[in-house]
């Protein structure tokens, strides 16, 4: 059915719901590349006005991608919790925004309605929210998870230590791991992007990280960010797999282009659970997402990229992940052109994921062909810190020498913890104190801690 409104002296007609959603999206290059963006500023606001008047329950009856054609749509509809939805079932999208911003919507209420929300409802409301709205509501959501430590508790901020190296060289990887640990990084995960998907090199890296975690008794988990099927093979071969990683997207076709479907994710989830390696909890999945991935696989079905992204969170939610990471600026300027677009997208993804109940983190990042720089990342970092992001990346000096992009540094994490009074995961915090890396107050100590002094001769300047 079509939607229309008279606004700004014009009469606007939108042929269907996905067009309303796309045209209501704040401007970004990927939607223009896809040909779904609003043509004028007035058209965008008109679409937002249509959206604000739309009953939330419309999204339960009007699938943006047909139920019969897409297993992600089927997942969303089949798993929708009517009881959780009931308190907000009479709202329009505009009412929903007002309610979210009100003090009635506290942490408990937001948790209670979470399973009653579909990605499309959440994407819709995000399109009529300003940056401060996205921050305020996300801050009220609390989605902690646990494996070998607890992540995402209030006033805590964790980091993924990302020791990537262009040739997976053990010395190079170990050097970045040590640097990160001594800067208090690595409580979300020590997670490496391998230079190759070759099974034996992947297992070598898994063992390398696991050996370090065991040797120093670090309350954290390791992950080698390889394909889910490679994880399954590694598990079969007896490799030490803490977390299973996979990139996911919001349509069945896009997931197919990644070589996955819900069935293989389920298989990997069960396999990881069967290893029983967590000591604090059993969240064993690590997912990465990012706006633009569905379009890039030509699998967006005319949807805008932010709606596609939010649908990926339904996939993530199905497998109780430890970490969900939106890699916001990695995809390039044809999807998010500049700092402004990257910042907005990062906050949207964090808000939408949190509202759907996910442990959201963000790879606050950019490539060298995007119109963005360190100042833009500082702004997104500060805003996500205020919004209560569960975790961010930590890499030596912001420079990923393998993936050739820039993300947050170990120093950046210390900055945001310092200005907002945030602390690491409680178990990891105790470890940092025990190892002599920080004081009881969380201040970094000078020099090489005693627990690492045996390395002095090998690593000194």
């Amino acid at each position, binding site marked *: 059915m079509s939607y229309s409104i008279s606004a700004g002296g014009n009469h606007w007609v939108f042929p269907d719901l996905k067009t309303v959603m796309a045209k209501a999206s704040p401007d970004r290059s990927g939607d223009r590349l896809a040909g779904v963006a609003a043509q004028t500023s007035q058209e965008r606001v008109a679409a937002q006005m249509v959206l604000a008047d739309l009953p939330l329950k419309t999204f339960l009856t009007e699938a943006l991608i047909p139920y019969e054609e897409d297993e992600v749509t089927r997942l969303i509809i089949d798993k929708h919790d009517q009881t959780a939805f009931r308190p907000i079932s009479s709202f329009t999208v505009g009412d929903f925004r007002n309610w979210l911003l009100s003090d009635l919507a506290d942490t408990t209420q937001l948790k209670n309605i979470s399973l009653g929300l579909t990605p499309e409802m959440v994407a819709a409301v995000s399109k009529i929210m300003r940056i401060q709205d996205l921050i305020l509501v996300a801050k009220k959501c609390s989605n902690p998870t646990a494996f070998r430590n607890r992540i995402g508790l209030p006033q805590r901020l964790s980091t993924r230590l990302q020791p990537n190296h262009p040739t997976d060289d053990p*010395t190079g*990887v*170990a050097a*970045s791991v*040590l640097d990160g640990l001594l800067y208090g990084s690595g409580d979300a995960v020590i997670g490496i992007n391998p230079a190759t998907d070759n099974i034996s090199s992947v297992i070598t890296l898994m063992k390398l990280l696991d050996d370090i975690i065991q040797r120093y008794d670090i309350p954290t988990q390791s992950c080698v960010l390889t394909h889910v099927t490679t994880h399954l093979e590694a598990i079969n071969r007896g490799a030490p797999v803490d977390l299973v990683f996979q990139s996911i997207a919001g349509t069945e076709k896009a997931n197919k282009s990644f070589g996955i479907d819900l069935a293989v994710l389920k298989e990997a989830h069960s396999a990881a659970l069967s290893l029983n390696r967590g000591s604090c909890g059993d969240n064993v999945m690590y997912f990465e997402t990012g706006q633009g991935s569905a379009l890039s696989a030509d699998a967006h079905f005319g949807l805008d990229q932010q709606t596609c992204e939010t649908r990926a969170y339904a996939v993530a939610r199905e497998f109780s992940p430890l970490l969900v990471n939106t890699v916001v600026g990695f995809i390039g300027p044809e999807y998010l052109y500049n700092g402004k677009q990257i910042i907005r997208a990062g906050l949207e993804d964090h808000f939408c994921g949190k509202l759907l109940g996910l442990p959201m983190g963000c790879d606050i990042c950019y490539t060298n062909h995007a119109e963005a720089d360190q100042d833009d990342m500082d702004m997104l970092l500060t805003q996500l810190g205020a919004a209560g992001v569960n975790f961010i990346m930590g890499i030596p*000096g912001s420079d990923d020498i393998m993936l050739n992009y*820039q993300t947050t540094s170990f120093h950046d994490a210390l900055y945001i913890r310092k200005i907002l009074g945030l602390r690491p995961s409680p178990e990891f915090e105790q470890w940092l104190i025990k190892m002599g890396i920080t004081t009881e107050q969380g201040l970094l100590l000078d020099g090489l801690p005693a627990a690492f002094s045996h390395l002095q001769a090998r*690593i*000194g*300047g």
Partner: protein
Amino acid sequence: MADSKLSSNGLSNKLSEGYLTENDWAGLKRYTDARIALGRAGTSIPTQAMLSFQMDHGNARDAVHLPLDVDKLCSELQDQAITPILLKSRAQGRTEYLQRPDLGRRLSVASAATLTSFAETIEPSMQACITIVDGLSSFAIQSHAANFFKQISLRLKEEGITQMPPCLVEQGRVAVGDEIGDILNAQLMILLVGERPGLSSPDSLGVYFTYKPKLGFSDANRNCISNIRPAGMSYEAAADKLIWLIKQSLQLDYSGVELKDQSDSIESLEEPKLGNFLLD
């Protein structure tokens, strides 16, 4: 990149000491290009390391945005008695190029016409076309294209492979080679392109090889040799790999993901490593 402690300003006041912390593990810098052991000012990145990063980012930005000096490149090719065919993509300027990769993959209408009339003048038996594309780093092309062209052109001759005059495309993407190869009816498309610059590799050149390219081919149809630059893969090693791929494709009648690169990898001469020293 090591930060030395700023020299004392002569004050005995405690406030002027200890504001910069160096790291005791700086010796590890020998083993990795990662920006480790930067030290800290408070908990922030010290001035020198911060500016060194900004310089590298500046170089990478310039590599993306400074236009290719076509005249200079042409004169370098002319020194080898080569006159390239000058072409443009459909992207009008850098801003559009960056946001519309689809336009960079196609020749402009005028360029397609130029190339079509040129195609009628070449002998049908010509096999290889080397195409030079600015891509995302004009710096890479400016630094390496002429020299690398010379190297591969020589190697092709040694193998008895005939060559058409090269094409030079402004505001192009890799797939523009499919349209060019299609129009020229080339058997072998060898496309040199400036790669997305990394912070420490603003001058990285890539080579994409496509056998019997046709408009509409995907990346699965080509083989890529990446990171060609002095600190990465040498011209010679890259040319070896390319010739190996070409010979294989001439036998198999295809290129791409099905053609696995099994050429001998060249061991790099690096400082002996420590392995995972954390377990010592």
